[in-house]
């Protein structure tokens, strides 16, 4: 806009100047007349010729000698004047137009000829002139028409010239009017531009005023002190915040030097040097470097910390420095307080931790003494009341010891004193054992427990099984604690072929409030609900878990929804030690290796179980598969019913009032006719190897670990479905030839190589043993020596999980020791069982 205006203005001015020059030229031409009164001059030629003629006429009539001289002089004078006039016509530029007229030129040349031939007459002496007067008169008369012609032609030529001149003047005037119009236009444009600039300037001034006002209000209301100083360090501006912070009134500060006002004395030298250096070299240390922390001085002399930011700006008066300062003495003091508090807290925490560690250790020793002494007391001889008291004392003592141990564990973890073992173990076995060990507790609260291990064939891992078990036990314990009549699952999964195993403990219990999720891993946290309170605990469990997981290089997390359950997730680096030869994706389940069991043909089933809920569950599961179900509420009832009715299978709970499962089994077996064997499956939550041994020795054919799942149940029933149940050989009636879990445990404990070595030895030994026993039975050499051999073989079989074989051997040993004669079929039965066991062992070895 301004640029366009300036350009048009420049163009207009250029045009104007050019036009002005043109006008000046024209005006010059008008102002400097280049002609005399030409017409008059021209006509004067005629007049002067007449005057000459007149003078000649006068001279002709005079004869007085004295007068004569005078008249002759007149003639001469008049001739000269005429001559002079003609010479003007001939040479003057103003008659140039006349000289261009051919007629006039012709006449003029005749006039000049007249003059030329007349001069000698005029210049002659008086007598000569007098003599020539008549001739002179004749010539003068003769030339008059020519003079007339020149005059008339000249008038015409000059009139034309005048016309041309007028036309020129008219065009000049027209040009002047155009220039005037142009000038007017330019003036209008200039006025418009001027008005525009004036308006702009006014707007700018207004805005500048507003900006200035805004700036002033910003400066005056700023919470930070703003001090503006010139290059000498003299204060140019000192805002209200600066007054407040530094204690000087604005009037005091204005014009004073910064170093005298607010720079502490011990910094003054450095400040002055810094200013000098900046002025000399332009090198900046503080200016424009953002926030720096410095010390400043108040009017009272107090030195206090400020956060300072200095920038510089160019003004008309030279460079100025704008400092923004914030009093941070409170902040600095608060920081100092905070650091002190933290140091004290850390020291206190350390002292507390030390105290706890020492106390726990010191408490442990007397507690152990107490509990040991309690065990020495022979409770059997005490009256029942006292026995009860002692039990309470023992239980309380153990609880106390557990708590102390927990605290000690924490202390050790805090001190980084957790020593981790690194040994091979079987992940599925660990999980299964853990789950089974807790099944009783879970069932007590009505919880169904299941587990799933998916390692992609990398069951055997390297790590600290004790710690892993501790972690999982803690999580599982919590899940059981906070779940009633629900389902709890323990899952283990290898993450994408990595070293990481993810364990998940999932329950559908009370869940954790979102607000508490972050706190659950903290020490001494027991969530404040009545339910939790009823459950109790030190609140250290998850704290220990967190530390253990961290120590093992893992991670732990939790997801939970209040009222819907929780999912604890632990990831631990547990590298695989053996890659399975035949990798199997088959997940290990509570059904002990059977992933999908088919429904078997309808069977007649007796349930011996004191727990009503368990009975209902079992009955439902069986009836849904089409089986006929009878129930017995305790062991004795079960024995009675088995004697009265013929069943395809008995499901026997172990712990029951009146007669427990083991005793009931023994009773049934004792009543059995020779050659018949009613399949009895023990139902138990306690699946420790030693217990299993006890059950089998009593005559249990298989063990079903609670909680009972549909799949597990079907798998077990399938094992007995197509057997000649009452006629089948004992070996055939035994479904689980090989307890793989037992074998796995052994493998974990010994390592795969060692296990293979031992297995080879076991197979050789057992083949010999079975052969020896069979042949001695055939020869009828039944004595205590045979019983010892059988016992030894049973021990070996138990060691390697050859359950069926062991069962038969144990039964045989009992028989011999009772003094009974063994069945003749026992020998071949043993051999058959061993053969199938060997086959299973071979399969197992292949499986890895």
């Amino acid at each position, binding site marked *: 806009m301004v640029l366009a205006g300036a350009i048009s203005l420049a163009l207009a001015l250029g045009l104007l100047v050019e036009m002005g020059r043109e006008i000046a030229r024209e005006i010059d031409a008008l102002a*400097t007349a280049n002609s005399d009164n030409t017409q008059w001059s021209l006509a004067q030629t005629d007049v002067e010729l007449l005057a000459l003629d007149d003078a000649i006429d006068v001279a002709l009539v005079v004869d007085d000698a004295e007068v004569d001289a005078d008249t002759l002089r007149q003639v001469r004078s008049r001739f000269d*004047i005429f001559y002079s006039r003609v010479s003007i016509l001939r040479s003057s530029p103003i008659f140039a137009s006349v000289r261009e007229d051919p007629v006039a030129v012709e006449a003029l040349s005749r006039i000049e000829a007249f003059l030329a031939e007349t001069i000698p007459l005029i210049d002659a002496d008086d007598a000569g002139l007098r003599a020539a007067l008549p001739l002179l008169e004749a010539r003068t008369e003769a030339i008059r028409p020519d003079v007339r012609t020149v005059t008339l032609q000249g008038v015409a030529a000059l009139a034309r010239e005048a016309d041309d001149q007028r036309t020129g003047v008219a065009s000049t005037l027209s040009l002047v009017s155009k220039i005037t119009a142009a000038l007017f236009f330019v003036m209008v444009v200039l006025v418009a531009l001027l008005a525009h600039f004036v308006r702009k300037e006014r707007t700018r001034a207004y805005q500048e005023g507003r900006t200035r006002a805004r700036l002033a209000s910003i400066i005056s209301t700023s919470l930070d002190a703003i001090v503006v100083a010139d290059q000498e360090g003299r204060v140019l501006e000192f805002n209200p915040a600066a007054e407040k912070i530094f204690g000087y009134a604005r009037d005091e500060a204005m014009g004073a030097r910064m170093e005298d006002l607010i720079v502490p004395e011990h910094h003054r030298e450095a400040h002055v040097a810094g200013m000098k250096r900046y002025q000399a070299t332009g090198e900046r240390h503080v200016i424009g470097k953002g926030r720096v922390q410095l010390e400043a001085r108040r009017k009272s002399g107090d030195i206090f910390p400020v956060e300072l930011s200095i920038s510089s700006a160019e003004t008309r008066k030279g460079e100025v420095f704008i400092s923004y300062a914030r009093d941070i003495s409170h902040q600095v003091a608060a920081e100092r307080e905070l650091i002190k508090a933290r140091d004290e807290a850390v020291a206190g925490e350390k002292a507390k931790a030390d105290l706890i560690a020492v106390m726990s250790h010191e408490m442990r020793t007397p507690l152990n003494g107490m509990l040991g002494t309690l065990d020495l007391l022979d409770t059997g001889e005490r009256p029942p009341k006292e026995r009860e008291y002692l039990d309470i004392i023992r239980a309380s003592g153990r609880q106390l010891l557990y708590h102390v141990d927990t605290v000690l564990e924490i202390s050790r973890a805090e001190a980084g004193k957790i020593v981790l073992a690194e040994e091979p173990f079987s992940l599925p076995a660990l999980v299964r054992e853990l789950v089974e060990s807790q099944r009783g507790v879970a069932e007590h609260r009505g919880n169904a427990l299941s587990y799933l291990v998916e390692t992609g064939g990398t069951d055997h891992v390297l790590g600290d099984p004790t710690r892993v078990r501790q972690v999982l036990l803690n999580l599982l314990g919590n899940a059981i604690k906070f779940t009633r009549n629900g389902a709890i699952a323990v899952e283990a999964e290898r993450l994408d072929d990595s070293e990481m195993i993810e364990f998940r403990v999932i329950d559908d219990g009370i869940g954790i409030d979102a607000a508490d999720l972050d706190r659950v891993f903290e020490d001494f946290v027991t969530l404040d609900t009545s339910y939790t309170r009823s459950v109790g605990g030190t609140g250290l469990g998850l704290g220990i878990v967190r530390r253990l997981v961290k120590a093992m290089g893992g991670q732990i997390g939790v997801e939970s929804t209040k009222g819907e359950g929780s999912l604890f997730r632990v990831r631990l680096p547990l590298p695989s030690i053996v890659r399975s030869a035949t990798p199997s994706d088959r997940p290990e389940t509570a059904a002990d290796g059977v992933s999908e069991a088919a429904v078997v043909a309808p069977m007649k089933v007796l349930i011996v179980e004191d727990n009503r809920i368990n009975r209902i569950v079992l009955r439902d599961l069986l009836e849904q598969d089409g089986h006929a179900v009878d129930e017995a509420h305790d062991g004795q009832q079960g024995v009675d019913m088995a004697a009265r009715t013929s069943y395809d299978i008995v499901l026997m709970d172990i712990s029951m009032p009146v007669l427990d499962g083991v005793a009931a089994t023994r009773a049934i077996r004792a009543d059995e006719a020779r050659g018949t064997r009613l399949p009895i499956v023990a139902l138990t939550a306690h699946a420790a190897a030693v217990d299993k041994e006890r059950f089998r020795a009593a005559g249990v054919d298989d063990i079903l670990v609670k909680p009972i799942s549909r799949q597990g149940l079907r798998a077990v029933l399938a094992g007995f479905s197509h057997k000649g149940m009452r006629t089948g050989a004992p070996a055939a009636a035994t479904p689980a030839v090989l307890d793989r879990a037992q074998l796995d445990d052994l493998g974990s404990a010994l390592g795969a190589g060692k296990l293979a070595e031992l297995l080879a030895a076991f197979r050789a030994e057992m083949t010999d043993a079975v052969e020896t026993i069979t042949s001695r039975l055939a020869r009828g050499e039944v004595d205590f020596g045979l019983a010892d051999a059988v016992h030894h073989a049973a021990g070996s079989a138990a060691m390697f999980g050859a359950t069926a074989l062991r069962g038969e051997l144990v039964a045989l040993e009992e028989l011999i020791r009772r003094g009974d004669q063994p069945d003749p079929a026992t020998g071949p039965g043993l051999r058959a069982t061993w053969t199938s066991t060997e086959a299973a062992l071979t399969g197992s070895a292949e499986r890895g």
Partner: protein
Amino acid sequence: MTFCTLARSLTLASALFAAGAAAALEPAEGEVLLTVTGAIGQTNAGDAAEFDRALLEGLGTVVIETTTIWTDGLQTFEGVELVDLLAAIEAEGTNLRGIAHNDYAVDIPVADAVEGGPIVAFLRNGEAMSLRDKGPLWVIYPFDSSPDYQSETIYSRSIWQLDRIEVQP
């Protein structure tokens, strides 16, 4: 515009003469070229002041180089400045009436008579001017020196064949 030069040449002798002339005007001894009458303080022939060539030269002369509208090319005129002439005769009028041999007459305001202004020329291109050559005296303004001297009024005042001057109050 063609250039114009104005040169003043005042000899020691003429200066002395002029000093003397202030006291009294010498009578003309040669042919009288100019007769001045009217309101004048100095006379040498009755009520008139008559000038011959010598008297005019005695007043001090100047040279004007200029073109004119009546002549062809640059001309050199030498003569007495009108202002000097009027001073010499102690003229006290406001108007000069110039009268020529050819009976032409024109009024010249005394105000025109300034230093560097018009002269009463008696030499053109170094030669005396005859009557045929618009002599013997010709009032010449320095036309080329200023556009002010290029008007018709000035041309009309440039009287040639000057014979007499009447100083009018």
